[in-house]
């Protein structure tokens, strides 16, 4: 960069004195260089690390004769992830003699008023317990080390016996985003018991009927 350096006018013609000049460094090239470096780093690096959500699946039953664990039908909440960001749900189980007369499914979505309200409604007792606990920790009423808060909450979840048992089943047209969303809702609502299952053939039919898809391509996954 060009710069005009003008000679400073000396005194009044008298004795020429060596003027005390501060050693002035031109910083402009340095600024340029730093700008370049900053731009480079901003473009090539990612500032925030991605987060991970932990998911634990029940181990697959290897022994074909082993009985799958039995759960209470009245507490069961089946969530079917449907196509086009829709959720279908029904409660209880479907017994084999109901296959020709399937129970109706209800439709909802991934918004806070949809699935979250539904889950919180059913999980209110536990959710309030967890909420109260966290509040008391924050207010200092319960003295507990910071790192054992999580384990105390998971103890609350294990002891819970009123909340729903959520079975998540994904229809083949659902996408991975839906899947993560629903797991996220489980964490938000503090659901104690949930699992991911393969969708059953009758549930495929239920989703197709509700979503108005012709079941020509229907097949068990």
């Amino acid at each position, binding site marked *: 960069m060009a*710069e*005009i*350096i*003008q000679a400073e006018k000396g005194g009044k013609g008298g004795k020429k004195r060596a003027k005390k000049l501060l050693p002035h460094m*031109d*910083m*402009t090239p*340095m*600024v340029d260089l*730093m*700008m370049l*470096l*900053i731009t480079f*780093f*901003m473009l*090539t*690096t*990612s*500032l*925030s*690390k*991605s*987060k*991970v*959500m*932990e*998911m*634990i*699946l*029940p*181990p*697959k039953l290897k022994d074909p004769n082993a009985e799958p664990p039995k759960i209470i039908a009245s507490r069961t909440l089946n969530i079917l*992830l449907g196509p086009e960001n829709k959720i279908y749900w029904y409660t209880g189980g479907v017994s084999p003699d109901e296959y020709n007369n399937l129970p109706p499914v209800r439709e909802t979505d991934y918004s*806070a008023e949809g699935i*979250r*309200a539904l889950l*919180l*409604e059913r999980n*209110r007792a536990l*959710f*309030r317990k967890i*909420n109260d606990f966290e509040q008391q920790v924050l207010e200092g009423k319960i003295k507990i080390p910071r790192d054992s808060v999580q384990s105390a909450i998971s103890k609350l979840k294990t002891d819970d016996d009123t909340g729903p048992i959520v079975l998540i089943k*994904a*229809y*083949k*047209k*659902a*996408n*991975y*985003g*839906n*899947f*993560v*969303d629903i*797991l*996220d809702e489980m*964490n*938000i609502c503090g659901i104690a018991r949930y699992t991911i299952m*393969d969708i059953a053939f009758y549930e495929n039919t239920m989703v197709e009927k509700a979503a108005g898809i012709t079941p020509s391509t229907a097949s068990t*996954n």
Partner: protein
Amino acid sequence: MPKIKLPTKSPRIDMTPMVDTFAVILIFLLLTSQMRSPEPANVDMPFSISETPIPDVNSMTFLISNDSKVYFNVDNGPDTTLKFRRKILEEMGKAYNIEFTDKELTLFEKYPSPIGLPIQNMKDFLNANSAERKNMETGIPIDSADNQLSMWILYARQVNPNVRATIKGDSETEIPAVQKVLNILQEKNVNRFNLVTSLEAVKINLDEIQK
């Protein structure tokens, strides 16, 4: 009346504070960020409220792109001390009767991104330049006839028993592709997964819901 003479001085801005600011920003960026490793497919991550940061070591990442291709990576980039990547490729080579030269192994060790191609093409892939590499990535075969992903998992766990599975999927990926990967992992007795997500803040107001 004498004319008022303005002192003629060069218009000089003192750059020192600017340099200081830039230096601070630069140092901040250097310390807080890590290099972004280029990814073979553009992945649009789903959101969650989870705040656990992604592990840097002891992880194997399965990247599932929205066209259902599967890519595999160990430890998010090149590793240095423990040489897991080299050993895994050596084992894979043995299993498929492919001999990798020392140079190829080193290339694989340094390769920063997830890889997604059949092991048979790996030799060509490592020797190709980066422009050619782009067209070669067709995803790791996961059919039951030629389940190479399951072999990768097997050797990754053999070489490093502490490895944890991390799944990074595009939110538009159809669920069967993800389920296939999950099933392959479960066959290998991996039941804990980390799903990579972006952070999203959610607040629930209990009173509001009870209304």
